[in-house]
């Protein structure tokens, strides 16, 4: 029933009835499966992908690279937790390569984000350095291209 997850990942508005028809299952089976996924925290939420830029809302997003000293017995997890608990942090990943932790931060202004980095992230114990990169334009997010034409413009042909 992994396919349910694929369907919901692409369109969380699908009803249980619709999913049941699409997969050739009963509504009860679909209901039970989704409930199980929710109970097991496989399904964590039902978010909506919004192009805020179109609403005129001015937000900034930054990607911050952190270099961190891992702690004995805990690795990076403890530091990461201190970081991801901030609501401004939208995503937090442990990385391979040239730095250790990626933090995606959203704020109202560049200044606000920069201050958050300077006041909250950089001073954290075990954080060695930060590098902040501001997002200028989002082309694609969560697998969705923002400016993709979605209109079906195929013309009728006599097959």
């Amino acid at each position, binding site marked *: 029933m992994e*396919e349910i997850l694929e*369907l919901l990942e692409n369109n969380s508005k699908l009803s249980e009835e*619709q999913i049941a*028809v*699409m*997969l*050739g299952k009963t509504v009860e089976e679909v209901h039970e499966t989704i409930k199980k996924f929710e109970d097991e925290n496989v399904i964590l939420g039902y978010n909506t992908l919004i192009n805020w830029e179109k609403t005129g809302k001015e937000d900034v997003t930054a990607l911050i690279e952190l270099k961190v000293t891992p702690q004995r017995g805990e690795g990076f997890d403890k530091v990461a937790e201190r970081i991801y608990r901030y609501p401004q942090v939208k995503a937090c990943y442990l990385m391979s390569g040239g730095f250790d932790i990626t933090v995606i931060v959203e704020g109202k202004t560049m200044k606000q984000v920069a201050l958050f980095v300077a006041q909250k992230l950089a001073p954290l114990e075990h954080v060695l350095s930060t590098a902040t990169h501001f997002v200028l334009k989002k082309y694609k997010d969560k697998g969705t291209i923002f400016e993709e034409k979605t209109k*079906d413009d*195929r*013309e*009728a*042909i*006599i*097959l």
Partner: protein
Amino acid sequence: MNMSEMISPTIKGIPPSGIRKFFDLVNEMKDAISLSIGEPDFVTPWNVREAGIYSLEKGHTHYSPNAGFMELRVEICKYLSRKYNVDYNPKNQVIVTVGGSEAIDIALRSLVSPGDEVIIPEPSYVSYKPCAILAGAKPVTLNLRVEDEFRLTPELLEKAITPKTKVLILPFPNNPTGAIMTKEDLDKIVDVLKDKNIVVLSDEIYAELTYGGKHISIASYPEMKDKTLMINGFSKSYAMTGWRLGYTCGHPDLIAAMYKIHQYAIMCSPTTAQYAAVEALKNSDSDIQMMNREYNRRRRVMVDGFRKIGLDCFEPLGAFYVFPCIKSTGLNSEQFCERLLSEEKVAIIPGTAFGECGEGFIRACYAYSTENIIEALKRVGKFVNSL
């Protein structure tokens, strides 16, 4: 000069498509919802498009060898071997054609002499009959039946065969019915054909689009391989309709004959499309899978929708069409579709477009977004209830 008198009587004898008027209407009605176009709504996978673009950037804008680039023919043979268990020699058993359509045309022209009979199971794709007539053959229509779920049965086939039969068209998975031939179905057909001098023109353009079981090619039967001309292509499987690229594989003698027509009439298939197709065959199995799964879900939505409306609909297991029966409405196919278009602005094709035995049926294509399908079904429901 009266130009009309100059036109060949053979061409005059071919009736224009009966649904041309209907299509003119569809094209005029800009806000109509359509379930009528028989092609994937997906855009060609990006890696495939990118390969085509790259070939243009590199200046690969010349003719290819007549039969197609060897690299492509090799990849086609590998693909057919791994997917359908049929082995061909890329040197003398493959021609890369301008869509499957060219292959149908040059196959029939290579095979038939005046008076030869070509058996065409109907309902089916609209090109077989005109191509047979243009080749000088006598088309023999074989009416498939809904009670067989539009599969070809040995009884129907035996009845259609005469001493003059030269070719059998085997169009499965089928447009417009969505019917497929399972191994058990094919076993019986092979029993009928194995000792006869009849060439099977197996149009397998929808081979990647089967739901519930893998497509079986009649060419994978050792006793049928040499008698079968396989036609396939990139249009449906890789969503590449506009690239115009197909291929055909078969006995070296038949391929050599077809090669002559291809060489003189066509020269070679589009070069850009051939570069893209190599990429498709090498690296797009996962795209095929993704599209197949998506079609399958839409298929279920559509079959379920028509049944809930109260229209009989056998479960089609191939291509991307459903073929519901509309006899219960009291309308014939054309009336149903014309009224549906004018009253609810939904374009669906009357079954009669695919042969007389399509009367009482309509062809709805699910190569459309699910939202589009659901809205169209809602309108069909409203229309049927208003009758």
